[in-house]
């Protein structure tokens, strides 16, 4: 495989080069990590009702085994030299055309190793949780089929060694997301949300398609190895274009501005789906893509600026939306948007931020999955009510849920020593080091986060009880609480990965290193400032929701800002007015055009001939003398023609 000595690769001044060694030993099992869930999906989806009884356990089992395998692989990787931690497994050549070959290769390195653990780990936990959550759904077996399909696709995404391979997984997770959002197909809103998610993701796919095309045109290949080795030879314009196209792709998948609108609707899916796909894993694929493409982004300041801007806008947007939503899942979804905004922002900071983005991605995966599952547990206990105004005082009824959720809450708002503190704090710090405005955005975002999360906590667990009469909240079964506990533990402890700079060092060979810039106020000072801002957010939330009674119906006399936040900052309205409605008008017009003009020309020609015919045939009037006249005129014309030709 790689014949280039690492020393030579290291000569490149830019980003690290992907030059993986061929997989051997335990690494030759790499393909199994993907194949197992894929097999599970195939069996569950094609097996039909025969698999109804044990199907969910098959689903859990395949992911669990994948997780174990990932663990084994991870430790095997840890056991290698730090310069030798890239392993590649060639499965088969996918397609070849001319000099362009795309291989279905798996690339296992420090970055994908982390993702493997996250996906199979959190995925496994959520699978387990779903066994309980979906117990009464007659299509549970299919649900697990879809979940397995998702896991397999997501693993493909993070293991692929080629942009087209990434695309395969990229669309696979999109499909799984589509299927799962619309899992309850009989609900028109679910079906619509599913379609919306897929279509908006496709807009992002334009970026990935064109980006891959541009990468091919530039490098003659789309494999990470070739691109990373030659990236520094490409012109900066090209690199910026590639970067922006990839950013577009990331915006679609990660629900970043301006392609963010699908995520809140996606909450129509069953809650484990929201936890796994729309919080912990799939939506972070955009972050993965940017970090994975660090060899491009590191070389293009302009594209990175674009990334940072998108991240800033989205982190604030998501946070603001989260402040106004009464639907617990939507509030969390807004939060997800916002947190991914942080990751994107971090990724846009270049080598200084790649590792932090991934770190935050991990911790977010833990605490957000935790909270979504917690929300699911709440809903489970309240007859699937999602309106927080119908909650209140649930902490007594659902103690485990409350405690685990609270850990997640502490993690997300960044209270030390919970996971979110470590990751978010570093991002804010690095952002300030990069640019004051960006840093300020991140800091304000942290404050808003504290506000809306506190609001959520208060409305759900603390304040007075506002349940519907027929609701009798109860704690969820153990199959659901154990995953909660596991995730809560991760949310509490996940931050320690940063201790001693482990995560940054681990990822450094993939994403490169940088010289840390120190802030004027120092890292500790920054942390203090952040904590103050967070405290302010909590205090405001307490003022509004802790001290006052929460009305059961959302107040309608609210400020413009609240209204805007409730309307998700008019993202949908904008799409509706600017794209959808004119689009349909245009299509209707086009249909008329097609029928009357395009087809009309063809049919019109036909009827013109017909009309000509019925008109001309009147000349055949039956009178022999007219015919004689025709003959005579014909003769005259013949003679004239001959003369004309002769004397011209």
């Amino acid at each position, binding site marked *: 495989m*790689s014949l*280039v000595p690492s020393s030579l690769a290291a000569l490149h001044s830019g980003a690290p080069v992907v*030059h993986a060694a061929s997989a051997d030993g335990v690494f030759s099992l790499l393909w199994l990590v993907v194949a197992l869930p894929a097999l599970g999906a195939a069996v569950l*989806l094609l097996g039909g009702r025969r698999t109804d009884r044990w199907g969910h356990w098959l689903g859990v089992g395949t992911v669990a085994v994948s997780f174990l395998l990932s663990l084994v692989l991870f430790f095997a990787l840890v056991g290698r030299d730090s310069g030798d931690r890239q392993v590649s497994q060639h499965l*088969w*050549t*996918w*397609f*070849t*055309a*001319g000099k*362009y*070959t795309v291989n*279905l290769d798996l690339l296992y390195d420090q970055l994908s190793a982390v993702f493997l653990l996250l996906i199979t780990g959190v995925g496994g936990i959520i699978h387990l949780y779903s066994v309980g959550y979906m117990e009464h759904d007659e299509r549970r077996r299919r649900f697990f089929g879809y979940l397995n399909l998702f896991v397999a696709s997501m693993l493909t995404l993070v293991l692929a060694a080629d942009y087209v391979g990434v*695309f*395969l997984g*990229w*669309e*696979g997770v999109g499909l799984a997301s*589509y299927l799962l959002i*619309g899992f309850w*197909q*009989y*609900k*028109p809103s*679910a*079906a619509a949300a*599913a*379609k919306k998610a*897929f*279509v908006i993701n*496709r807009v992002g*796919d*334009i970026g990935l*398609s*064109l980006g*891959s*095309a*541009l990468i*091919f*045109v*530039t*490098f*003659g*290949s789309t*494999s990470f*190895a*070739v691109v990373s*080795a*030659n990236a520094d030879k*490409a*012109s900066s314009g*090209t690199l910026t274009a590639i970067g922006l196209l990839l950013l577009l792709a990331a915006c679609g998948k990660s629900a970043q501005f301006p392609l963010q609108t699908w995520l809140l609707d996606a909450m129509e899916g069953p809650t484990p789906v929201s936890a796994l796909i729309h919080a912990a894993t799939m939506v972070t694929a955009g972050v993965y893509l940017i970090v994975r493409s660090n060899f491009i982004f590191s070389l293009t300041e302009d594209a990175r600026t674009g990334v940072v801007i998108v991240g800033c806008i989205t982190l604030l947007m998501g946070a603001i939306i989260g402040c106004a939503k009464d639907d617990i899942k939507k509030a969390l979804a807004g939060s997800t948007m916002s947190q991914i905004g942080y990751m994107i922002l971090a990724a846009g900071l270049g080598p200084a931020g790649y590792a932090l983005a991934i770190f935050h991605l991990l911790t977010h995966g833990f605490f957000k999955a935790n909270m979504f599952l917690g929300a699911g547990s709440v809903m489970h206990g309240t007859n699937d009510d999602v309106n927080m105004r119908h909650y209140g005082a649930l902490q007594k009824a659902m103690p485990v849920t409350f405690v685990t959720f609270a850990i997640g809450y502490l993690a997300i708002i960044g209270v030390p020593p919970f996971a979110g503190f470590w990751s978010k704090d570093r991002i804010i710090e690095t952002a300030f080091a990069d640019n004051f405005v960006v840093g300020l955005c991140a800091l304000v975002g942290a404050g808003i986060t504290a506000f809306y999360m506190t609001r959520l906590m208060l409305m759900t667990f603390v304040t007075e009880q506002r349940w519907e009469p027929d609701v009798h909240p109860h704690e969820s079964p153990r199959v659901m609480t154990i995953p909660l506990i596991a995730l809560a533990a991760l949310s509490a402890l996940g931050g320690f990965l940063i201790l001693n700079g482990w995560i940054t060092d681990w990822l450094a060979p993939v994403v490169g290193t940088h010289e840390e810039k120190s802030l004027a106020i120092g890292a500790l000072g920054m942390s203090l400032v952040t904590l103050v801002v967070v405290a302010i957010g909590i205090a405001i939330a307490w003022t509004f929701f802790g001290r006052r009674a929460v009305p059961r119906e959302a107040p309608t006399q609210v400020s413009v800002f609240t209204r805007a936040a409730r309307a998700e900052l008019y993202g949908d309205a904008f799409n509706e007015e600017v794209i959808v409605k004119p689009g*349909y008008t245009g*299509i209707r017009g*086009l*249909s008329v055009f097609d029928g009357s003009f*395009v087809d009309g*020309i*063809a049919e019109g020609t036909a009827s013109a001939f017909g009309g000509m015919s019925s008109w001309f045939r009147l000349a055949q009037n039956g009178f022999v003398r007219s015919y004689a006249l025709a003959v005579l005129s014909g003769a005259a014309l013949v003679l004239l023609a001959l003369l004309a030709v002769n004397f011209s």
Partner: protein
Amino acid sequence: MSNFPWLSVLIAVPIVGAVVVQALPRRANAAAPKQIAFGVSLLTLVLGLVMASGYENDGGMQFTEQHTWIKSFGAHYAVGVDGIGLTLVLLTLILTPVVLLASWNDADPIPLDVRDVAAESPHVAPARWSPNAFFAWMLAMEGLAVGVFAATDVFLFYVFFEATLIPIYFLVGGYGGAGRARAAVKFLLYSLAGGLIMLASVIGLYVVSAKSSGGATYLVSELSKIDFGTDTGRWLFVGFFIAFAIKAPMFPVHTWLPDTTENATPGTSVLLVSVLDKIGTFGMIRFCLELFPEASRWATPVVVTLAVVSVIYGALMAIGSDNIPRLIGYTSVSHFGFIVLGIFVMNSQGLSGANLYMFNHGLSTAALFLVTGFLISRRGSALISDFGGVEKVAPVLAGVFLVSGLASLSLPGLSPFVSEFLVIVGAFSHSVVAAAFAVTGIVLAAIYILLMYQRTMTGPTRPEIVGMRDLGTREIAAVAPVLLLIVIFGFFPKPLLSVINPSVDHTMSQVDRHDPAPTVAEQSPEGAHQ
């Protein structure tokens, strides 16, 4: 066996089968004609696979036969296939038994499925003739289609090209919806008009070749050596191209297709769209590009523009359609836009992608037509608005529908993706603008497919749908092989590409185009993974 006339056999077996089937006694609901027709198509498929197993991937014409046919015209009975032809021949052979099986009851006087709704439904009309004729025409079409793809003599190609119109004409006009007669005539006239325009160019070829040193000939191998001169070459090119554009069909000469698919039976639509329309794009490669390289290059800007317009236009029209077969017809306009785009960007990626697309589009569209056909026959309506919540009562049907639809929107992992991706990459190498516009097709495709799925399959189950049967064994047996191939070739298109690529190289050398080198000229050795 090397001299065995494989292709002639593949042409003759179905046609003889057609005659036999037509000659069988006509009894209502008799199974014999259907069984025999199905058997013949399977036999042909087996023969075709045996032939294909002997194909060598060197890009040249193989299984060639050549006999002088009309000496004064320079016409030969000359057949042979290269990779491009072989894949399309195989596509024909694969789809015919599928279609026959799927159409088992479509030609019955009134299909069993819809006996109760046929009376008032505008989408189902009683068949005009016996099932014998239906199955016989289908087989005849198979044979003729193989002939078209195998012909290596322009005259012979033209003859097959026109001959295929007749079976379709009777299939559309005799079996299908209420507007079938009109649709059949429209189809035929469009095709004939195109064919006649092409005839002028075909004759032009003769005139030029007669003046050349070798004397009059229609053999592609000979013609490709002739330099037609700029003006003549361009005129002849235009004649061929118009015919193929109508056939393909491209904007703005596409309007016959939705009308036809709206009224034809699903089986007919499959053979028409999946197989016969490929003649258009096949012809563009084989004749436009390979015979008139200069003119092709000259026409590229216009053709690429039209192709991109087709991509977007077809997709938009599909979004706006409420009639399912009509919608699928428009999607094909869009897909053919991609294929033509791939052909005329004239690089390896585009051409390989286009060739592969022809095969894959055949599969995906076949699946989509067949499964929607099952759906429509159950409800007696083809209007999207008459459906809703089918998934609940017929999950297998819905699943098949979804997979077919996803294939149609080129989801990675399903076979059309590779082809579409290659076309986009090829287009990008040629013109960033063209690629940028064409790529919007992938969004629009998602909209038309998923919107259709959403409206028909999801939501609350409509009262008329309750009690709808799920797919039966025969129906599953018909579509399963297609879906299986879609998945297999989605991950492993190598068998097809290894056949196609050498032929693409040949085409490239014929048009004298070379792939642009990567902007970053120096490649690391890691570029080649083999």
